[in-house]
Protein backbone atom coordinates (compact mmCIF):
# COMPACT_ATOMS: atom_id res chain seq x y z
CA UNK A 1 0.00 0.00 0.00
CA UNK A 2 2.81 2.43 0.87
CA UNK A 3 4.65 1.82 -2.38
CA UNK A 4 1.37 2.19 -4.21
CA UNK A 5 0.63 5.49 -2.44
CA UNK A 6 4.16 6.71 -3.18
CA UNK A 7 3.72 5.99 -6.89
CA UNK A 8 0.36 7.70 -6.96
CA UNK A 9 1.74 10.83 -5.27
CA UNK A 10 4.62 10.87 -7.76
CA UNK A 11 2.09 10.62 -10.59
CA UNK A 12 0.10 13.44 -9.00
CA UNK A 13 3.16 15.72 -8.92
CA UNK A 14 3.98 14.86 -12.55
CA UNK A 15 0.42 15.76 -13.60
CA UNK A 16 0.58 19.10 -11.79
CA UNK A 17 3.92 19.86 -13.44
CA UNK A 18 2.58 18.89 -16.88
CA UNK A 19 -0.49 21.05 -16.30
CA UNK A 20 1.71 24.06 -15.46
CA UNK A 21 3.75 23.46 -18.61
CA UNK A 22 0.58 23.35 -20.72
CA UNK A 23 -0.70 26.63 -19.24
CA UNK A 24 2.69 28.26 -19.78
CA UNK A 25 2.90 27.13 -23.41
CA UNK A 26 -0.68 28.24 -24.16
CA UNK A 27 0.08 31.71 -22.80
CA UNK A 28 3.35 31.83 -24.79
CA UNK A 29 1.63 30.87 -28.04
CA UNK A 30 -1.38 33.19 -27.76
CA UNK A 31 -0.69 36.72 -28.95
CA UNK A 32 -0.22 38.96 -25.94
CA UNK A 33 2.46 41.41 -24.87
CA UNK A 34 1.86 42.69 -21.33
CA UNK A 35 4.48 45.41 -21.65
CA UNK A 36 2.99 46.80 -24.87
CA UNK A 37 -0.50 46.76 -23.38
CA UNK A 38 0.61 48.55 -20.22
CA UNK A 39 2.40 51.34 -22.08
CA UNK A 40 -0.06 51.80 -24.93
CA UNK A 41 0.57 51.84 -28.66
CA UNK A 42 2.66 55.02 -28.78
CA UNK A 43 5.31 53.85 -26.30
CA UNK A 44 8.95 54.45 -27.24
CA UNK A 45 10.89 51.26 -28.06
CA UNK A 46 13.49 51.88 -25.35
CA UNK A 47 10.81 52.38 -22.64
CA UNK A 48 9.17 49.17 -23.84
CA UNK A 49 12.48 47.30 -23.65
CA UNK A 50 13.13 48.67 -20.17
CA UNK A 51 9.71 47.53 -18.91
CA UNK A 52 10.17 44.10 -20.49
CA UNK A 53 13.50 43.78 -18.67
CA UNK A 54 11.92 44.88 -15.42
CA UNK A 55 9.13 42.29 -15.74
CA UNK A 56 11.65 39.64 -16.75
CA UNK A 57 10.01 39.24 -20.15
CA UNK A 58 13.32 39.59 -22.01
CA UNK A 59 14.51 36.23 -20.62
CA UNK A 60 14.19 33.08 -22.78
CA UNK A 61 10.92 31.17 -22.33
CA UNK A 62 12.41 28.05 -20.79
CA UNK A 63 14.21 30.13 -18.15
CA UNK A 64 11.03 32.00 -17.26
CA UNK A 65 9.22 28.67 -16.93
CA UNK A 66 11.91 27.22 -14.66
CA UNK A 67 12.04 30.28 -12.39
CA UNK A 68 8.23 30.45 -12.28
CA UNK A 69 7.93 26.78 -11.23
CA UNK A 70 10.84 27.11 -8.81
CA UNK A 71 9.18 30.08 -7.15
CA UNK A 72 5.79 28.34 -7.10
CA UNK A 73 7.32 25.39 -5.26
CA UNK A 74 8.60 27.79 -2.63
CA UNK A 75 5.13 29.31 -2.35
CA UNK A 76 6.06 32.48 -4.23
CA UNK A 77 3.42 33.23 -6.89
CA UNK A 78 5.31 36.23 -8.27
CA UNK A 79 4.44 39.92 -8.53
CA UNK A 80 1.42 41.17 -10.49
CA UNK A 81 2.48 43.13 -13.61
CA UNK A 82 -0.36 45.60 -13.21
CA UNK A 83 -0.75 46.13 -9.49
CA UNK A 84 2.87 45.53 -8.44
CA UNK A 85 1.75 43.55 -5.40
CA UNK A 86 2.38 39.86 -4.71
CA UNK A 87 -0.08 37.67 -6.67
CA UNK A 88 -0.70 35.71 -3.48
CA UNK A 89 -2.24 38.84 -1.94
CA UNK A 90 -4.56 39.37 -4.92
CA UNK A 91 -5.63 35.73 -4.93
CA UNK A 92 -5.91 35.55 -1.14
CA UNK A 93 -8.41 38.41 -1.06
CA UNK A 94 -10.57 36.77 -3.77
CA UNK A 95 -10.46 33.24 -2.33
CA UNK A 96 -12.46 34.57 0.62
CA UNK A 97 -15.39 34.90 -1.77
CA UNK A 98 -14.96 32.02 -4.19
CA UNK A 99 -14.12 29.27 -1.70
CA UNK A 100 -17.16 29.83 0.59
CA UNK A 101 -19.31 30.13 -2.53
CA UNK A 102 -18.06 26.82 -3.95
CA UNK A 103 -18.42 25.10 -0.55
CA UNK A 104 -21.96 26.39 -0.10
CA UNK A 105 -22.82 25.19 -3.60
CA UNK A 106 -21.37 21.71 -3.00
CA UNK A 107 -23.16 21.49 0.35
CA UNK A 108 -26.48 22.57 -1.15
CA UNK A 109 -26.13 20.32 -4.16
CA UNK A 110 -25.41 17.26 -2.00
CA UNK A 111 -28.14 17.92 0.53
CA UNK A 112 -30.72 18.41 -2.23
CA UNK A 113 -29.59 15.61 -4.53
CA UNK A 114 -29.09 12.67 -2.17
CA UNK A 115 -32.56 12.69 -0.54
CA UNK A 116 -34.19 13.17 -3.96
CA UNK A 117 -32.12 10.41 -5.56
CA UNK A 118 -32.78 7.93 -2.72
CA UNK A 119 -36.47 8.76 -2.53
CA UNK A 120 -36.83 8.52 -6.30
CA UNK A 121 -35.10 5.12 -6.37
CA UNK A 122 -37.28 3.77 -3.56
CA UNK A 123 -40.41 4.83 -5.51
CA UNK A 124 -39.07 3.60 -8.82
CA UNK A 125 -41.68 3.88 -11.54
CA UNK A 126 -44.16 5.79 -9.37
CA UNK A 127 -45.52 9.17 -10.39
CA UNK A 128 -43.32 10.92 -7.80
CA UNK A 129 -40.22 9.24 -9.28
CA UNK A 130 -41.17 10.30 -12.81
CA UNK A 131 -41.88 13.86 -11.69
CA UNK A 132 -38.59 14.20 -9.82
CA UNK A 133 -36.53 12.78 -12.68
CA UNK A 134 -38.31 15.04 -15.19
CA UNK A 135 -37.40 17.93 -12.88
CA UNK A 136 -33.80 16.74 -12.87
CA UNK A 137 -33.72 16.71 -16.69
CA UNK A 138 -34.96 20.28 -16.66
CA UNK A 139 -32.36 21.27 -14.05
CA UNK A 140 -29.53 19.85 -16.15
CA UNK A 141 -30.71 21.76 -19.22
CA UNK A 142 -30.87 25.17 -17.53
CA UNK A 143 -27.66 27.19 -17.80
CA UNK A 144 -26.60 28.26 -14.29
CA UNK A 145 -26.16 31.90 -15.29
CA UNK A 146 -29.75 32.02 -16.55
CA UNK A 147 -30.91 30.50 -13.28
CA UNK A 148 -28.91 33.24 -11.54
CA UNK A 149 -30.66 35.95 -13.56
CA UNK A 150 -34.08 34.41 -12.83
CA UNK A 151 -33.22 34.30 -9.11
CA UNK A 152 -32.26 37.99 -9.24
CA UNK A 153 -35.56 38.71 -10.96
CA UNK A 154 -37.69 36.82 -8.42
CA UNK A 155 -35.83 37.10 -5.12
CA UNK A 156 -34.10 40.47 -5.55
CA UNK A 157 -36.25 42.55 -7.90
CA UNK A 158 -39.75 41.29 -7.02
CA UNK A 159 -39.48 39.98 -3.46
CA UNK A 160 -36.46 41.98 -2.32
CA UNK A 161 -35.23 39.21 -0.02
CA UNK A 162 -31.66 39.17 -1.30
CA UNK A 163 -29.31 41.69 -2.93
CA UNK A 164 -29.24 41.63 -6.76
CA UNK A 165 -25.44 41.43 -6.68
CA UNK A 166 -22.27 42.45 -4.92
CA UNK A 167 -20.60 41.07 -1.82
CA UNK A 168 -21.17 42.50 1.65
CA UNK A 169 -17.67 41.58 2.84
CA UNK A 170 -16.70 39.51 5.86
CA UNK A 171 -16.05 42.62 7.98
CA UNK A 172 -19.82 43.30 7.92
CA UNK A 173 -20.37 40.05 9.78
CA UNK A 174 -20.67 36.43 8.72
CA UNK A 175 -24.45 36.66 8.34
CA UNK A 176 -24.37 39.56 5.90
CA UNK A 177 -21.57 37.99 3.87
CA UNK A 178 -23.30 34.63 3.60
CA UNK A 179 -26.58 36.40 2.79
CA UNK A 180 -25.04 37.86 -0.37
CA UNK A 181 -23.82 34.40 -1.40
CA UNK A 182 -27.17 32.59 -1.08
CA UNK A 183 -28.54 33.30 -4.57
CA UNK A 184 -25.28 32.61 -6.44
CA UNK A 185 -24.78 29.40 -4.43
CA UNK A 186 -28.26 28.15 -5.33
CA UNK A 187 -27.75 29.08 -9.01
CA UNK A 188 -24.53 27.05 -9.03
CA UNK A 189 -25.90 24.18 -6.97
CA UNK A 190 -29.23 23.36 -8.67
CA UNK A 191 -27.90 22.14 -12.05
CA UNK A 192 -25.22 20.12 -10.22
CA UNK A 193 -27.87 18.73 -7.85
CA UNK A 194 -29.90 17.64 -10.86
CA UNK A 195 -26.98 15.61 -12.21
CA UNK A 196 -26.13 14.23 -8.79
CA UNK A 197 -29.69 13.13 -8.05
CA UNK A 198 -29.74 11.06 -11.23
CA UNK A 199 -26.43 9.42 -10.31
CA UNK A 200 -27.67 8.74 -6.76
CA UNK A 201 -30.90 7.22 -8.04
CA UNK A 202 -29.10 4.91 -10.49
CA UNK A 203 -26.61 3.88 -7.81
CA UNK A 204 -29.29 3.15 -5.18
CA UNK A 205 -31.27 1.12 -7.73
CA UNK A 206 -28.14 -0.91 -8.39
CA UNK A 207 -27.54 -1.69 -4.70
CA UNK A 208 -31.23 -2.40 -4.05
CA UNK A 209 -30.86 -5.39 -6.37
CA UNK A 210 -27.92 -6.84 -4.39
CA UNK A 211 -28.09 -10.03 -2.34
CA UNK A 212 -27.29 -8.33 0.96
CA UNK A 213 -30.33 -6.09 0.65
CA UNK A 214 -32.53 -9.12 0.01
CA UNK A 215 -30.94 -10.84 3.02
CA UNK A 216 -31.62 -7.77 5.15
CA UNK A 217 -35.26 -7.86 4.09
CA UNK A 218 -35.42 -11.62 4.65
CA UNK A 219 -34.19 -11.32 8.22
CA UNK A 220 -37.17 -9.08 8.87
CA UNK A 221 -35.93 -5.49 8.41
CA UNK A 222 -38.51 -3.10 7.03
CA UNK A 223 -37.95 -1.76 3.52
CA UNK A 224 -37.03 1.67 4.94
CA UNK A 225 -34.39 0.32 7.33
CA UNK A 226 -32.94 -1.96 4.65
CA UNK A 227 -32.80 1.01 2.31
CA UNK A 228 -31.11 3.47 4.66
CA UNK A 229 -28.86 1.07 6.57
CA UNK A 230 -27.75 -1.26 3.78
CA UNK A 231 -28.44 0.11 0.33
CA UNK A 232 -27.75 3.83 0.71
CA UNK A 233 -24.28 3.70 2.37
CA UNK A 234 -23.04 1.39 -0.38
CA UNK A 235 -24.68 3.43 -3.09
CA UNK A 236 -22.95 6.61 -1.96
CA UNK A 237 -19.47 5.40 -2.92
CA UNK A 238 -19.82 6.13 -6.66
CA UNK A 239 -21.69 9.32 -5.76
CA UNK A 240 -18.55 10.54 -3.98
CA UNK A 241 -16.56 10.19 -7.21
CA UNK A 242 -19.05 12.28 -9.15
CA UNK A 243 -18.93 14.84 -6.36
CA UNK A 244 -15.16 15.08 -6.85
CA UNK A 245 -15.62 15.60 -10.59
CA UNK A 246 -18.27 18.24 -9.99
CA UNK A 247 -15.75 20.33 -8.13
CA UNK A 248 -14.10 21.10 -11.47
CA UNK A 249 -17.43 22.24 -12.97
CA UNK A 250 -18.12 24.35 -9.88
CA UNK A 251 -14.80 26.15 -10.17
CA UNK A 252 -15.47 26.99 -13.79
CA UNK A 253 -19.07 27.83 -12.92
CA UNK A 254 -18.02 30.39 -10.34
CA UNK A 255 -16.19 32.27 -13.10
CA UNK A 256 -19.50 32.93 -14.88
CA UNK A 257 -21.73 33.19 -11.78
CA UNK A 258 -19.44 35.78 -10.19
CA UNK A 259 -20.08 37.86 -13.31
CA UNK A 260 -23.84 37.50 -12.94
CA UNK A 261 -23.77 38.64 -9.31
CA UNK A 262 -20.73 40.96 -9.58
CA UNK A 263 -18.92 39.12 -6.79
CA UNK A 264 -15.25 40.05 -6.28
CA UNK A 265 -13.98 36.45 -6.48
CA UNK A 266 -11.38 34.49 -8.42
CA UNK A 267 -13.51 34.56 -11.58
CA UNK A 268 -13.63 38.35 -11.65
CA UNK A 269 -9.90 38.47 -10.95
CA UNK A 270 -9.37 36.15 -13.91
CA UNK A 271 -11.34 38.45 -16.24
CA UNK A 272 -9.56 41.56 -14.97
CA UNK A 273 -6.13 39.99 -15.32
CA UNK A 274 -6.85 38.78 -18.85
CA UNK A 275 -8.13 42.22 -19.88
CA UNK A 276 -4.99 43.85 -18.49
CA UNK A 277 -2.71 41.10 -19.83
CA UNK A 278 -1.54 40.51 -16.26
CA UNK A 279 -0.39 37.12 -17.46
CA UNK A 280 1.43 36.07 -14.31
CA UNK A 281 -1.89 36.24 -12.43
CA UNK A 282 -3.73 34.30 -15.18
CA UNK A 283 -0.98 31.67 -15.19
CA UNK A 284 -1.07 31.27 -11.39
CA UNK A 285 -4.86 31.18 -11.25
CA UNK A 286 -5.28 28.47 -13.89
CA UNK A 287 -2.53 26.34 -12.38
CA UNK A 288 -4.00 26.75 -8.89
CA UNK A 289 -7.43 25.69 -10.11
CA UNK A 290 -6.08 22.75 -12.10
CA UNK A 291 -4.00 21.68 -9.08
CA UNK A 292 -6.98 21.81 -6.76
CA UNK A 293 -9.00 19.70 -9.21
CA UNK A 294 -6.18 17.14 -9.46
CA UNK A 295 -5.69 17.00 -5.68
CA UNK A 296 -9.41 16.72 -4.89
CA UNK A 297 -9.89 13.88 -7.36
CA UNK A 298 -6.83 12.19 -5.89
CA UNK A 299 -8.23 12.47 -2.36
CA UNK A 300 -11.65 11.20 -3.49
CA UNK A 301 -9.95 8.28 -5.20
CA UNK A 302 -8.04 7.44 -1.99
CA UNK A 303 -11.19 7.67 0.17
CA UNK A 304 -12.94 5.46 -2.37
CA UNK A 305 -10.27 2.82 -1.80
CA UNK A 306 -10.66 3.07 1.97
CA UNK A 307 -14.43 2.68 1.72
CA UNK A 308 -14.33 -0.17 -0.76
CA UNK A 309 -11.34 -2.49 -0.18
CA UNK A 310 -12.21 -4.50 -3.31
CA UNK A 311 -10.88 -1.69 -5.51
CA UNK A 312 -7.47 -1.56 -3.83
CA UNK A 313 -6.95 -5.33 -4.03
CA UNK A 314 -6.43 -5.38 -7.79
CA UNK A 315 -3.96 -2.52 -7.81
CA UNK A 316 -1.52 -3.78 -5.22
Amino acid at each position, binding site marked *: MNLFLFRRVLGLLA*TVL*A*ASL*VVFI*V*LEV*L*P*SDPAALMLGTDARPDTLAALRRELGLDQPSWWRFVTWIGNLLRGDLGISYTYRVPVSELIGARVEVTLPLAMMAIGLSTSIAIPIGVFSASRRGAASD*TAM*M*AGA*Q*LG*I*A*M*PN*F*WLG*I*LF*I*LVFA*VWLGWFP*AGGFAGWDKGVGAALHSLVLPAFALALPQAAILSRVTR*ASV*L*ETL*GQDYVRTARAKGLTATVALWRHAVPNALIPVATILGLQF*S*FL*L*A*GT*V*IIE*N*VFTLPGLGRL*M*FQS*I*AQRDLIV*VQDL*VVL*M*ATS*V*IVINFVVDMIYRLLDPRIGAGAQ
Partner: protein
Amino acid sequence: MKPKLSLYIGVGLVGLIVATALLALFWTPYPPTKIDILHRLARPSAAHWLGTDPFGRDVLSMIMVGTHTSLLVSLLAVSIGAGIGIPLGALASSCGGWVDALVMRMADLAFAFPALLTAVMITALAGPGATNAMLAIGLFNIPVFARVTRGAALSVQERDFVVAARATGRGAFGVMARHVLPNISGILLVQITIQFALGILAEAGLSYVGLGTQPPQPSWGRMLNDAQTFIFRAPMLAVFPGLAITVAVLGLNLLGDGLRDRLDPRLMARR
Protein backbone atom coordinates in the same frame (compact mmCIF):
# COMPACT_ATOMS: atom_id res chain seq x y z
CA MET B 1 -39.23 9.03 -17.41
CA LYS B 2 -40.32 6.29 -19.77
CA PRO B 3 -37.53 5.66 -22.30
CA LYS B 4 -39.80 5.80 -25.35
CA LEU B 5 -41.41 8.98 -24.13
CA SER B 6 -38.05 10.68 -23.58
CA LEU B 7 -36.96 9.68 -27.10
CA TYR B 8 -40.16 11.16 -28.60
CA ILE B 9 -39.98 14.39 -26.59
CA GLY B 10 -36.28 14.67 -27.42
CA VAL B 11 -36.90 14.22 -31.14
CA GLY B 12 -39.76 16.73 -30.94
CA LEU B 13 -37.75 19.44 -29.18
CA VAL B 14 -34.65 18.99 -31.34
CA GLY B 15 -36.94 19.01 -34.39
CA LEU B 16 -38.48 22.27 -33.20
CA ILE B 17 -35.06 23.92 -32.83
CA VAL B 18 -33.79 22.65 -36.20
CA ALA B 19 -37.02 23.68 -37.93
CA THR B 20 -36.73 27.15 -36.38
CA ALA B 21 -33.14 27.40 -37.57
CA LEU B 22 -34.15 26.42 -41.11
CA LEU B 23 -37.11 28.79 -41.12
CA ALA B 24 -34.91 31.65 -39.88
CA LEU B 25 -32.71 31.18 -42.94
CA PHE B 26 -35.59 32.45 -45.09
CA TRP B 27 -37.99 34.30 -42.83
CA THR B 28 -38.17 36.11 -39.51
CA PRO B 29 -41.01 38.44 -38.39
CA TYR B 30 -38.60 41.40 -38.51
CA PRO B 31 -34.99 41.76 -39.66
CA PRO B 32 -33.19 40.57 -36.47
CA THR B 33 -30.72 43.46 -36.37
CA LYS B 34 -33.15 46.23 -37.30
CA ILE B 35 -32.98 49.00 -34.67
CA ASP B 36 -36.25 50.78 -33.88
CA ILE B 37 -35.71 53.17 -30.97
CA LEU B 38 -39.34 54.34 -30.94
CA HIS B 39 -40.50 50.85 -29.97
CA ARG B 40 -37.71 49.91 -27.55
CA LEU B 41 -38.43 47.63 -24.59
CA ALA B 42 -41.97 46.93 -25.84
CA ARG B 43 -43.93 44.29 -23.93
CA PRO B 44 -45.02 41.15 -25.77
CA SER B 45 -47.90 42.09 -28.11
CA ALA B 46 -49.47 41.09 -31.39
CA ALA B 47 -46.90 43.14 -33.31
CA HIS B 48 -43.92 41.78 -31.35
CA TRP B 49 -44.83 38.38 -29.91
CA LEU B 50 -41.93 38.33 -27.46
CA GLY B 51 -41.48 42.11 -27.19
CA THR B 52 -38.48 44.20 -28.21
CA ASP B 53 -35.03 44.73 -26.69
CA PRO B 54 -33.33 47.99 -25.55
CA PHE B 55 -32.63 48.87 -29.19
CA GLY B 56 -36.12 48.08 -30.36
CA ARG B 57 -35.06 44.87 -32.07
CA ASP B 58 -37.67 42.11 -32.25
CA VAL B 59 -36.84 39.47 -29.62
CA LEU B 60 -38.53 36.59 -31.47
CA SER B 61 -36.53 37.31 -34.62
CA MET B 62 -33.30 37.51 -32.60
CA ILE B 63 -34.01 34.20 -30.85
CA MET B 64 -34.82 32.55 -34.19
CA VAL B 65 -31.57 33.72 -35.75
CA GLY B 66 -29.77 32.86 -32.50
CA THR B 67 -30.40 29.17 -33.26
CA HIS B 68 -27.88 29.47 -36.09
CA THR B 69 -25.08 30.61 -33.82
CA SER B 70 -25.85 28.05 -31.17
CA LEU B 71 -26.23 25.06 -33.48
CA LEU B 72 -23.31 25.97 -35.74
CA VAL B 73 -20.76 26.63 -32.98
CA SER B 74 -21.78 23.49 -31.14
CA LEU B 75 -21.87 21.35 -34.29
CA LEU B 76 -18.38 22.40 -35.34
CA ALA B 77 -17.06 21.99 -31.78
CA VAL B 78 -18.43 18.44 -31.67
CA SER B 79 -16.99 17.74 -35.13
CA ILE B 80 -13.55 18.83 -33.95
CA GLY B 81 -13.85 16.71 -30.82
CA ALA B 82 -15.20 13.63 -32.58
CA GLY B 83 -12.98 14.04 -35.66
CA ILE B 84 -9.79 14.02 -33.59
CA GLY B 85 -10.91 12.19 -30.46
CA ILE B 86 -12.45 9.10 -32.06
CA PRO B 87 -9.37 8.23 -34.18
CA LEU B 88 -7.15 8.86 -31.13
CA GLY B 89 -9.26 6.57 -28.95
CA ALA B 90 -9.37 3.91 -31.67
CA LEU B 91 -5.61 4.14 -32.08
CA ALA B 92 -5.08 3.83 -28.32
CA SER B 93 -7.31 0.77 -28.05
CA SER B 94 -5.83 -1.12 -31.00
CA CYS B 95 -2.16 -0.27 -30.39
CA GLY B 96 -2.15 -0.63 -26.62
CA GLY B 97 1.23 -0.26 -24.91
CA TRP B 98 2.88 3.14 -24.81
CA VAL B 99 0.59 4.69 -27.47
CA ASP B 100 -2.40 3.84 -25.27
CA ALA B 101 -0.66 5.13 -22.15
CA LEU B 102 0.35 8.37 -23.88
CA VAL B 103 -3.12 9.13 -25.26
CA MET B 104 -4.81 8.34 -21.93
CA ARG B 105 -2.35 10.38 -19.85
CA MET B 106 -2.96 13.33 -22.18
CA ALA B 107 -6.70 12.91 -21.73
CA ASP B 108 -6.29 12.74 -17.94
CA LEU B 109 -4.28 15.95 -18.07
CA ALA B 110 -6.94 17.73 -20.12
CA PHE B 111 -9.57 16.76 -17.55
CA ALA B 112 -7.63 18.59 -14.84
CA PHE B 113 -8.50 21.93 -16.43
CA PRO B 114 -12.01 23.21 -15.73
CA ALA B 115 -13.15 23.36 -19.36
CA LEU B 116 -15.14 26.58 -19.28
CA LEU B 117 -12.43 28.38 -17.31
CA THR B 118 -9.79 27.46 -19.86
CA ALA B 119 -12.13 28.33 -22.73
CA VAL B 120 -12.52 31.77 -21.13
CA MET B 121 -8.74 32.14 -21.01
CA ILE B 122 -8.24 31.02 -24.61
CA THR B 123 -11.01 33.11 -26.17
CA ALA B 124 -10.12 36.19 -24.15
CA LEU B 125 -6.46 36.07 -25.19
CA ALA B 126 -6.87 34.80 -28.76
CA GLY B 127 -9.64 37.31 -29.38
CA PRO B 128 -13.36 37.02 -28.59
CA GLY B 129 -15.58 35.63 -31.34
CA ALA B 130 -17.59 32.63 -32.47
CA THR B 131 -14.64 30.94 -34.21
CA ASN B 132 -12.35 31.00 -31.19
CA ALA B 133 -15.21 29.95 -28.91
CA MET B 134 -15.85 26.99 -31.18
CA LEU B 135 -12.17 26.00 -31.21
CA ALA B 136 -11.91 26.31 -27.42
CA ILE B 137 -15.03 24.18 -26.84
CA GLY B 138 -13.92 21.69 -29.50
CA LEU B 139 -10.52 21.30 -27.85
CA PHE B 140 -12.17 20.01 -24.68
CA ASN B 141 -14.33 17.57 -26.62
CA ILE B 142 -11.24 15.73 -27.92
CA PRO B 143 -10.29 13.92 -24.67
CA VAL B 144 -13.95 13.06 -23.99
CA PHE B 145 -14.33 11.28 -27.34
CA ALA B 146 -10.88 9.69 -27.04
CA ARG B 147 -11.80 8.16 -23.66
CA VAL B 148 -15.26 6.97 -24.64
CA THR B 149 -14.03 5.46 -27.92
CA ARG B 150 -11.14 3.68 -26.25
CA GLY B 151 -13.29 2.26 -23.46
CA ALA B 152 -16.01 1.07 -25.81
CA ALA B 153 -13.56 -0.29 -28.38
CA LEU B 154 -11.66 -2.27 -25.73
CA SER B 155 -14.86 -3.97 -24.64
CA VAL B 156 -15.58 -5.07 -28.22
CA GLN B 157 -11.95 -5.90 -29.07
CA GLU B 158 -12.07 -9.34 -27.37
CA ARG B 159 -15.47 -10.40 -28.68
CA ASP B 160 -15.52 -13.50 -30.88
CA PHE B 161 -16.40 -11.79 -34.14
CA VAL B 162 -13.50 -9.37 -33.80
CA VAL B 163 -11.08 -12.17 -32.92
CA ALA B 164 -12.41 -14.11 -35.93
CA ALA B 165 -11.92 -11.12 -38.22
CA ARG B 166 -8.37 -10.78 -36.96
CA ALA B 167 -7.78 -14.49 -37.55
CA THR B 168 -8.79 -14.14 -41.20
CA GLY B 169 -5.78 -11.88 -41.59
CA ARG B 170 -7.47 -8.51 -41.68
CA GLY B 171 -5.14 -5.71 -40.54
CA ALA B 172 -5.69 -3.69 -37.37
CA PHE B 173 -7.05 -0.77 -39.37
CA GLY B 174 -9.52 -2.94 -41.28
CA VAL B 175 -10.77 -4.63 -38.11
CA MET B 176 -11.24 -1.26 -36.46
CA ALA B 177 -13.08 0.27 -39.41
CA ARG B 178 -15.19 -2.74 -40.40
CA HIS B 179 -15.94 -4.45 -37.11
CA VAL B 180 -15.14 -2.40 -34.03
CA LEU B 181 -16.32 1.12 -34.90
CA PRO B 182 -19.68 0.05 -36.38
CA ASN B 183 -20.38 -1.89 -33.18
CA ILE B 184 -19.70 1.06 -30.90
CA SER B 185 -21.38 3.64 -33.14
CA GLY B 186 -24.41 3.72 -30.83
CA ILE B 187 -22.32 4.69 -27.82
CA LEU B 188 -20.56 7.34 -29.88
CA LEU B 189 -23.86 8.71 -31.16
CA VAL B 190 -25.15 9.09 -27.59
CA GLN B 191 -21.92 10.87 -26.62
CA ILE B 192 -22.31 13.20 -29.61
CA THR B 193 -25.76 14.31 -28.43
CA ILE B 194 -24.43 14.88 -24.88
CA GLN B 195 -21.45 16.93 -26.10
CA PHE B 196 -23.71 18.83 -28.46
CA ALA B 197 -25.89 19.85 -25.51
CA LEU B 198 -22.84 20.81 -23.43
CA GLY B 199 -21.52 22.79 -26.41
CA ILE B 200 -24.71 24.85 -26.55
CA LEU B 201 -24.40 25.59 -22.81
CA ALA B 202 -20.72 26.52 -23.19
CA GLU B 203 -21.35 28.79 -26.19
CA ALA B 204 -24.14 30.54 -24.31
CA GLY B 205 -21.87 30.99 -21.28
CA LEU B 206 -19.02 32.42 -23.33
CA SER B 207 -21.35 34.75 -25.22
CA TYR B 208 -22.91 35.84 -21.93
CA VAL B 209 -19.54 37.07 -20.66
CA GLY B 210 -18.87 38.71 -24.02
CA LEU B 211 -16.29 36.24 -25.33
CA GLY B 212 -18.38 34.26 -27.82
CA THR B 213 -20.47 35.49 -30.71
CA GLN B 214 -20.03 39.23 -31.20
CA PRO B 215 -22.80 41.74 -31.86
CA PRO B 216 -24.68 42.50 -34.03
CA GLN B 217 -24.95 38.73 -34.73
CA PRO B 218 -27.70 37.65 -32.28
CA SER B 219 -26.84 34.97 -29.75
CA TRP B 220 -28.82 33.67 -26.79
CA GLY B 221 -26.06 34.19 -24.25
CA ARG B 222 -25.45 37.77 -25.38
CA MET B 223 -29.19 38.52 -25.22
CA LEU B 224 -29.27 37.39 -21.60
CA ASN B 225 -26.41 39.71 -20.78
CA ASP B 226 -28.24 42.67 -22.37
CA ALA B 227 -31.42 41.65 -20.58
CA GLN B 228 -29.73 41.75 -17.18
CA THR B 229 -28.97 45.45 -17.58
CA PHE B 230 -32.66 46.17 -18.04
CA ILE B 231 -33.99 43.65 -15.57
CA PHE B 232 -35.94 46.28 -13.61
CA ARG B 233 -37.64 47.79 -16.66
CA ALA B 234 -38.18 44.74 -18.87
CA PRO B 235 -37.98 41.52 -16.85
CA MET B 236 -39.45 39.42 -19.68
CA LEU B 237 -36.30 39.99 -21.76
CA ALA B 238 -34.41 37.72 -19.37
CA VAL B 239 -36.87 34.85 -19.80
CA PHE B 240 -37.10 33.95 -23.49
CA PRO B 241 -33.45 33.50 -24.55
CA GLY B 242 -32.91 31.28 -21.48
CA LEU B 243 -35.96 29.23 -22.43
CA ALA B 244 -34.53 28.75 -25.91
CA ILE B 245 -31.25 27.43 -24.46
CA THR B 246 -33.13 25.14 -22.08
CA VAL B 247 -35.35 23.73 -24.81
CA ALA B 248 -32.36 22.98 -27.05
CA VAL B 249 -30.29 21.36 -24.28
CA LEU B 250 -33.25 19.45 -22.83
CA GLY B 251 -34.15 18.13 -26.29
CA LEU B 252 -30.64 16.88 -26.97
CA ASN B 253 -30.30 15.28 -23.53
CA LEU B 254 -33.65 13.49 -23.80
CA LEU B 255 -32.73 12.37 -27.32
CA GLY B 256 -29.42 11.00 -25.98
CA ASP B 257 -31.16 9.19 -23.12
CA GLY B 258 -33.78 7.74 -25.42
CA LEU B 259 -31.16 6.57 -27.93
CA ARG B 260 -29.12 4.97 -25.17
CA ASP B 261 -32.09 2.89 -24.03
CA ARG B 262 -33.06 1.94 -27.53
CA LEU B 263 -29.52 0.91 -28.49
CA ASP B 264 -28.80 -0.97 -25.28
CA PRO B 265 -31.99 -2.67 -24.05
CA ARG B 266 -30.08 -4.31 -21.19
CA LEU B 267 -30.00 -0.93 -19.44
CA MET B 268 -33.79 -0.80 -19.47
CA ALA B 269 -33.94 -3.40 -16.70
CA ARG B 270 -32.19 -1.00 -14.35
CA ARG B 271 -34.35 2.03 -14.95
